[in-house]
């Protein structure tokens, strides 16, 4: 097959249109920058970006949690008939810890047995058994007293 003017015109046009659309797609999803973003969702689809502060929160509490410790991450999503995506994300972000789903009742009504740490994200709780370990912008990490 020999290349013709038509082939040349069509292929160049096609490639330029893909390139243009690609650049448009990249610049509309966030500012052009060379550095790594704070989280892996910082410039993702608009519906997912709301999770970025939650990822930062989990990364911060991870530094304060000992390996193999048992932790509950309480968020506004709570715990209904099935675990929320907040819980599933915490399970992945804290792979060295045992993450349990929040209880169906509010934590301050009773802390489940065997829990060593409780992290609260945009949720306020208080209990004489909780000792503050870290106070973070979007929440707190508590150690549970026996």
């Amino acid at each position: 097959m020999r290349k013709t003017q038509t082939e040349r015109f069509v292929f160049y046009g096609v490639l330029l249109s893909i390139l243009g659309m690609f650049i448009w797609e990249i610049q509309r999803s966030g500012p052009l920058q060379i550095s790594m973003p704070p989280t892996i969702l910082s410039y993702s689809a608009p519906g997912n970006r709301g999770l970025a502060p939650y990822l930062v929160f989990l990364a911060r509490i991870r530094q304060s949690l000992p390996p193999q410790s048992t932790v509950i991450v309480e968020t506004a999503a709570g715990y209904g008939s099935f675990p929320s995506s907040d819980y599933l994300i915490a399970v992945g972000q804290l792979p060295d810890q045992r993450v349990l789903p929040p209880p169906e009742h509010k934590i301050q009504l009773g802390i489940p047995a065997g829990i060593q740490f409780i992290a609260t994200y945009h949720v306020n709780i208080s209990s004489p058994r909780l000792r503050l370990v870290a106070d973070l912008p979007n929440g707190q990490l508590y150690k549970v007293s026996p």
Partner: protein
Amino acid sequence: MTLTAGARFVIAIATIPAIGAWTLALLPRRCIKSWPVAIVVTALAGWLTIAAEMAVLAVAGVPWTIGALVILPVAGALVTVWRFGRSAEFKNWRWNPCISVGIAMTCCFLVLAAYAALTSRATSTDYLLFWGTKGARFAAARTVDLRFLRDPDHYFMHPDYPPLLPLLYSWGALVAGRFPWGAALVTFPWFIALAVLTYSAGVKRAVSAWVAGMLTACFAGLLALTLVVKTTAGNADPPLILFETVALSIVSFWPPDTVAEWCAGIALAGGAMTKVEGLFFAGLLVIATAVFERTAGQRWRTIYRLAIPPVVAIAGWVIFCIRSQILSTYNGAANGKFIIGHLWTVLTQMGREAGFQVFYLPWVILVLLVILLKPRVTTAACWTGIGYLLVNIWFYLHGTDDPTLWVRWSAGRTLITVLVCGIFAVSVPRLRPQARAEHASPD
């Protein structure tokens, strides 16, 4: 600390081709005559080798260690180096770029894909919810963590989804010391680059060098753009597309050949072990290849060479799931009843997703290429794409009361497979398979 773990993960991925280098000593010399083919073959073989070793160790109850995982592949690689070191064969391998414009545009699209992934523009939430989570958890447990998978609270992580991608993540996490969520996104451009290399090596057997270069750039651009727009970085869609590309490339561009067909079968097994959709793709491609790409005398031999690897792989995985009591997807438990009344909703939502948020550009380009190249309609790629579309519609009709959310969530990604089939369909030469075998040029 993060940089160190990330850099180690990247090194782990970069060593994958070395782990698969043993295959070069086994494959007949006619199969690999160029660097692009050697890179793709060793990369995929390395990934499948590590995954197979992890599976065997998990079943045997032996914890994963880097030493246990690399000892056999390293020995195989040393044998390969020793064999090739004694012959000058690999010096004859070529890296023969088609033309500078095509190569430049291809590289440009790959760089854009890498940039989009590493600046978190293409991250999938499924990566956070289960693909990456499984990789991180398996690496922490140093095995396929059945206690984690059996936990009822983790049901929505799809315990019996195929494990190939989480095993790759686990390999990287073992080397890195932990799972670096950001650095693991480097696999996104890696998968796309391997798919582009595969397509490039095949298409230049079918059309002129200049057209092959341009088609490769189109393939790279459309694949990278749609995968970025549909936020699939970290998800299993890019590796699924890679395995599909390898299988499509072999059946579309290579003349009938025993070893090549077994390789296509292994690629289909890789796809089936990457995502559930890969099994349906395998079934469709086997049937379409037998019908459209082979003569009556070749048909049955082709069917069993293509079908046996995915059937064996999935059967092994399903048996493991049954014995481990984690079977849920493969027994159809997640499917609702068939409701034909949802057809209009499904079609309209799929039509909407088909726009890829770029004004239907991929399909416009496909139509332009059909007009320009006048491809043969009776090809395996063409009918696999049509079949895949129909199978997806059939599945969406088994949804819940309102399939809208499900279609919106997944249709855009499944349509990328249809698009890839379309690109292969326009690239396939107008020659019939028999004539193609006579005209086949070495890669």
